[in-house]
């Protein structure tokens, strides 16, 4: 059974149809990429799946239950986690605390227990700190474990976001342009990291402009254009699809082909 089912999803802003009648399914354990030209609606799809936007119509079914219009924190509870194209780092905290925020749902949230710093809470918090440090090493920012978030370079912050998302132990991880703004070496490292995450059993949904990265690691690819599904399939199927070529390179390419 599919982990995520998106059924006839639409969202418009004023008169603009950002996403229109979009349906797709994602199988568990796969790396699923969403590509398309700028403004095709990729990030809007992410925001709809993670509850930051409410759909105008359509349904989102995650892990067998209808989650359409649920708040982001409720989706997090069900195992959806994500990163952001424009970083959403808490610069008022240390790097490792940023990652610990990701583990929030697994920790004690009682006000009284926190005020009194009950031994059980302190113990679990210490374990969580250790796990967060371990995750920072896993994503390759181990040397910033003692650092403040605002002392870290851009590339490291992108990985810190991935570590925070993983700290939630999600079933599905949505990565919004993890390689944007990175140099080729860093992009290659992100490529390896995403594969490692995929191997660990987490379903990965990827929005990315770096075609080499996308074509290399995706099990399936969804192509969006003007908020609609243009094509879907394996890397090879998508690459050979004339409509996709036209959308990316212009109609001339279609005529020439």
């Amino acid at each position, binding site marked *: 059974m599919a982990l995520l089912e998106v059924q006839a999803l639409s969202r418009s802003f004023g008169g603009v149809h950002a996403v229109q009648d979009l349906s797709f399914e994602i199988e568990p354990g796969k790396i699923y990429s969403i590509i398309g030209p700028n403004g095709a609606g990729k990030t809007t799809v992410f925001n709809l799946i993670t509850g930051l936007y409410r759909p105008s119509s359509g349904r989102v079914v995650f892990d067998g239950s209808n989650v359409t219009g649920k708040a982001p924190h409720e989706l997090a509870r069900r195992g959806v*986690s*994500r990163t*952001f194209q424009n970083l959403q780092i808490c610069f*008022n905290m240390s790097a490792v605390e940023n990652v*610990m*925020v990701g583990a929030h749902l697994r920790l*004690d949230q009682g006000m009284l227990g*926190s005020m009194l710093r009950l031994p059980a809470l302190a113990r679990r918090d210490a374990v969580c700190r250790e796990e967060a440090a371990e995750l920072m090493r896993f994503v390759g920012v181990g040397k910033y474990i003692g650092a403040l978030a605002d002392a870290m370079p851009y590339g490291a912050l992108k990985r810190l976001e991935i570590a925070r998302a993983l700290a939630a132990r999600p079933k599905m991880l949505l990565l919004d342009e993890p390689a944007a703004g990175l140099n080729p070496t860093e992009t290659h490292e992100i490529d390896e990291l995403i594969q490692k995450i995929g191997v660990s059993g987490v379903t990965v949904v990827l929005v990315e402009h770096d075609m080499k990265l996308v074509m290399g690691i995706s099990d399936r690819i969804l192509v969006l254009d003007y908020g609609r599904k243009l094509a879907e399939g394996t890397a090879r199927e998508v690459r050979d699809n004339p409509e996709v070529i036209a959308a990316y390179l212009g109609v001339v390419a279609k005529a020439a082909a």
Partner: protein
Amino acid sequence: MGRFRGLAALALIIALLPLALPNNYYYDVAIRIGMNAIIVVGLNLLIGYAGQISLGHAGFVGLGAYASAVLSSRFGWPPLAAMLFGMAAVGVIAFVVARPILRLRGHYLAMATLGLGIIIYMVLVNESAWTGGNDGMSVRPFSLLGLTLASERAWYWVTGAVLLGAILLANNIVDSPVGRALRAVHGSEVAAQVAGIDTTRYKVRVFVLSAVFASAVGSMMAHYLGFVSPQVSSFFHSIELVTMVVVGGMASTYGAVLGAAILTTLPQLLATFEGYEMITFGLILMLTVIFLPRGLLPTIAARLRKAG
């Protein structure tokens, strides 16, 4: 233990300060500093850590003060029971108003909390049958188990102990999952939501907590001064409290104590400029925001770290 170093240092200061306090007037200033510091430590959780503003917190101080005054002096409740009842009642009131108010942001939140403070002030002025209106009312001394807190010295030690306790609780919260959730609400609300944090719920929780801190101090002030008037919940008092947070240092518990110390002492030093305190406060607030946006203590700490 690193987490207790600041607390131990402050305890030492509180223990040794009486050696430098020549008479009751100085004790009085120290007590006022301590009481303001307790409110500001709570308010700093809301403003400094969670990034939400309240321009009406003096209202909660007033509610606590009058709960103690009315219940203990008019109805003969034991002062501690009156104080605890006040804290519980303020907690409930804060909880009820917090949800609609904290859905607002920025200027709108500032205006709504300002309005809330003014409403409380007006109620305290107008319900004169209970509160004595603008004339205020007298409050009997705080007593517990047959012991009465009467002297400045006794109040000094009690206030000092409560302050240390408040700081311990506040610091525990900051360094807990709840505290990280609050700081995440400030740092990136979207990131917090996606990480599973119900941000509205956390804003409400910290608002209620800071209101209960304010209420407790209101009760203490009422018994200490033996008198309450609606001025305790005035808009100017709310501004004073916010100024203490901002000047001392946002998201710094000891900064909050420093802010309370400076801005409580200042009017005493400026007594000759009577009538100009408001202007002075405004000026200090402006200069801090322009030149030390992070507040005194965090700025000093950052300088020291750089130099060291």
